[in-house]
């Protein structure tokens, strides 16, 4: 800490921000100070440091309402992508036990799942990643400060240690990458008191037991999917539709599959209150919007997955004059990620209108670092962003949904090629494949440029990455057809898709 105090003195003693002709670096403690050590912040700070910039990153995790804390790396590493994919893998292994028996494996006894074993291993892995990030920062000569950062003015950041100690750092450029946190429906009595969120689920010390997941975002469905998959009684409560913003036909397939594999759905229901019974279980009351009747049931855990909100209130944005979007609370940014204050930038989930995805934050962070280091001028392209929902039946897509394509181009101007296919691994396992589906949305005229690709099935994420590259290169429908398939894979079905929705013909794939 002694060192940090010295910087403060330097700031005080130099304090001469008015001579732009002087070599700027010497004016500030750092070239770049990054607030937030998540995917975007870490990528940005490491890249900038590698390009010779003097960089500090401040990271501090405000404990969740339930008191859950974690280390460096942000949402993705600690309470997002990484633990959820590992638990998704566990769930897939759960169904693999059943499939394996069809493949000739005789498993004598009953198979059970121990949450603690899995969670311990997941948590250990996450902790190893936290450590890995620390080491990387050190290797790349990024100053890591376990402090909560906020703005003092356009060049000054105040850091507060977990113990309450304060310091100030100055920087030529400031990058805000503090991400977002799950929301609670504060209007529902008992919601905050008894409920948990995705910030807690991966760090539970014991099995959540019978769980109610409220919400139908991808977070909600992914959590419900792996909870079901490891054998827990799981219900999803949905107010309106599943996977808002995604192609709604695909969303339907995802939830149909989940229902077929044991996840219960309470459609068109809104929670009213949560009470704790003397036994310790939670009694949830909700309103069925169709029947207008109230219903209730008991659960061991209630998980709220009703959206995420940016943490902008305590960032001191107003002090530096950084504008936020009043509706969302997110920071308004331009195509160069700059906020309303030209030397302050915002990347990742905190910035308005950006996809809440790790890879976009990472890429935006790296590109920003290169621009700040005057090494490149390229801006982040937020179009063509592929994404995968790791529900029990994975769903991956890039480009427009069919509905969006219709809106933009008109129904007559688009052609939708589709196929219901059966992954080979489903056949011997005697699994129903009626939700394994491919949809390629193209322009109808010209060279039939592809507008969107959608795929549900095993390994959807692995399948789609390469197609996203093709999409980025401007792939057309003939490009797909002219590529030789890889047999027997699920991915090859994308190069064989030939039935149009318009034709009304049966889109079920038969034979090889």
């Amino acid at each position, binding site marked *: 800490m002694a060192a940090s105090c010295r910087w403060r003195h330097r700031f005080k003693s130099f304090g001469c921000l008015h001579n732009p002709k002087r070599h700027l670096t010497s004016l500030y403690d750092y070239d770049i100070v990054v607030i937030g050590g998540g995917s975007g912040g870490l990528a940005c700070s490491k890249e900038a440091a590698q390009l010779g910039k003097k960089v500090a990153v401040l990271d501090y995790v405000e404990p969740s309402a339930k008191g859950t804390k974690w280390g460096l790396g942000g949402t993705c590493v600690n309470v997002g*992508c990484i633990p959820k994919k*590992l638990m998704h*893998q566990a769930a897939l*292994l759960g169904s*693999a*036990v059943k499939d*394996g028996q*069809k*493949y*000739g*494996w*005789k*498993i004598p006894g*009953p*198979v*059970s*799942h*121990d949450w*603690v074993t899995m*969670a311990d*291993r*997941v948590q250990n*892995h996450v902790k190893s990643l936290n450590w890995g990030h620390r080491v990387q920062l050190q290797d790349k000569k990024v100053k890591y400060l376990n402090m909560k950062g906020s703005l003092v003015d356009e060049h000054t950041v105040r850091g507060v240690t977990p113990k309450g100690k304060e310091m100030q750092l100055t920087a030529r450029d400031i990058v805000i990458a503090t991400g977002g946190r799950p929301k609670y429906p504060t209007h529902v009595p008992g919601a905050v008191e008894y409920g948990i969120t995705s910030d807690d689920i991966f760090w539970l010390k014991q099995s959540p037991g019978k769980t109610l997941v409220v919400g139908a975002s991808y977070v909600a469905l992914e959590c419900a999917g792996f909870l079901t998959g*490891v054998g827990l009684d799981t219900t999803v409560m949905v107010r309106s539709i599943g996977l808002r913003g995604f192609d709604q036909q695909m969303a339907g397939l995802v939830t149909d599959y989940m229902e077929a594999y044991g996840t219960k759905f309470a459609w068109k229901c809104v929670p009213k209150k949560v009470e704790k019974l003397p036994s310790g279980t939670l009694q949830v009351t909700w309103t069925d919007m169709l029947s207008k009747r109230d219903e209730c049931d008991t659960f061991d855990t209630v998980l709220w997955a009703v959206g995420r909100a940016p943490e902008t209130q305590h960032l001191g944005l107003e002090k530096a004059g950084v504008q936020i979007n009043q509706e969302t609370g997110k920071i308004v940014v331009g195509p160069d990620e700059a906020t309303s204050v030209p030397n302050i930038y915002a990347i990742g989930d905190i910035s308005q209108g950006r996809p809440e*995805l*790790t*890879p*976009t934050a990472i890429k935006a962070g790296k590109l920003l670092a290169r621009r700040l280091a005057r090494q490149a001028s390229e801006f982040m392209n937020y179009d063509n962003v*592929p994404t995968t929902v790791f529900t029990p039946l994975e769903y991956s897509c890039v480009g427009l949904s069919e509905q969006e394509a219709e809106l933009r181009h008109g129904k007559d101007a688009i052609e939708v090629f589709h196929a219901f296919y059966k992954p*080979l691994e489903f056949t*011997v396992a005697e699994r129903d494949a009626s939700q394994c589906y491919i949809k390629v949305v193209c322009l109808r005229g010209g060279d039939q440029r592809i507008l969107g690709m959608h795929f549900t099935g095993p*390994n959807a*994420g*692995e*399948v789609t*990455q*390469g*197609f*996203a*590259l*093709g999409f*980025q*290169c*401007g*792939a057309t429908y003939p*490009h797909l057809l002219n*590529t*030789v*398939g*890889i*047999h*027997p*894979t*699920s*991915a*090859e079905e*994308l190069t064989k898709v030939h039935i149009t929705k318009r034709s009304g013909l049966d889109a079920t794939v*038969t*034979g*090889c």
Partner: protein
Amino acid sequence: WAARGGGGVAPSSSAGLEPRPPFAPCASDGEGVATGTRRDFLGMGLLAQIGRALRSAFAPSPRRPVGRAMASDAPLRFDFLVVGGGSGGLAGARRAAELGASAAVVESHRLGGTCVNVGCVPKKVMWNAAVHAEYLHDHSDYGFEGASGQFSWQLLKRKRDAYVSRLNQTYQNNLDKAKIQTIRGHATFVAGPEPTVEVGGKKYTAPHILVATGGRPSVLTDLEVPGGLRGDLCWLFFLFVSFRRSVIVGAGYIAVEMAGILSTLGSRTSIILRQGVVLRNFDSYISNNCTKELLNAGVDLWKHTQVKSVRQQRGGLEVTLVTKDPDTREEERTSVVQDVDCLLWAIGREPNTSGLNIREMGVELDEKGHIVVDEFQNTTRKGIYAVGDVCGKALLTPVAIAAGRKLAHRLFEGKPDSRLDYSCIPTVVFSHPPIGTVGYTEEEATKKWGKDNLKIYKTSFSPMYHALTTRKTQCIMKLVCAGAEEKVVGLHMQGVGCDEMLQGFAVAIKMGATKADFDRTVAIHPTSSEELVTLR
């Protein structure tokens, strides 16, 4: 493994040993075939005899004696006559029928050819079973208790055969629906004013005849390896017992796939290879890594080794091997592997052209018997075309299918330029973990562009799936980029999920994607494939 056509997919039948009539519809009684095979095999007892039986089964069938008098009537005419009901032939016939042609397919046995009956499909089913074996190792690491078990070959075999039979039936239905006549039997070209085919004493002709008879595994003669025993791949697909001790001869992808499956399913497995690594035609990054993964999985590799002789002993086969490493001055060593109950030759494939009488039609064959075709699948005889494995180029189902369809469009839709582009064909090897590769290897690219004009990007990492498992495999990836614009001309990878990853990249690489395009693509997190777009 694209097609096994007119030559006959006679898995269980052979000249001397016929469990059922040759022309019986096959799809409905797949189980029957299996039972017949089993009984006969058990009855014969000695593996040596199995080998011999199979050798004749998979050799091109001898022309059947013509039962009835030679048809004096004029040959039956079609627009399009296809010899061989495998992947390429069926695809060509169906597309031709869609385009309005009257078509017929000649097939002596099960529809679907090599791919469906003794190739991709049963192979991948068994690979999936082996993947489950790997999962069972990992279950406890992911918190599952009680997930351990015994493997039943019989159960898998029954399920697999049932699935293959369903596919056979599907193919038959597809032909029937398309009003394509199925002609059962072996085809032989006969002389005439126009190319004519004789099947079971009847003659058929068409202005366009497509030969898509596929290929079969190569076998050695007694002179080459004394001992007379033959195993072959098709045999493995019809096996009915579990193997304790397997010896696989060969280092190609079939050897690698079979070794992976057998060893993962619990057989102690050895690979006998002439050189030092498997998959020598692949990028060296892959062939070295695959060799390493095989060793990690407990397969033992006999490098620089050949089979000298095979003897039947009481406990099984006794395989005598000769090892001579050319890089050392050591003497030749002779070793013996005892108690082998599965000896599998995977030393290459050869075309099903003998017995077709096709050379006599003026169709040129190369020295190995492959039909020589031009880029439009034309043979040297007008009106006769060939697609698939019988041509000896890119022995892959989708290649045969695409070539068959392109040909149909050229012949029956008046598209004179319709032909398959044989560049950038992606392939996957279902090893453990799987391999995906498309385009030039670094070695090939160096020859074509020169070392200075290439940039190679590589990565090696432990896939996230293994974060919780004690069993580990690596994922390796390599991009070969050529020229100043760094056009991606080759992609090679091995790792969990690489089988499903490759297809989309193949589309992009065929489109001419550059490294910059890869860099511009947003990753999908968390996947293994995202590593390909974040390579530095």
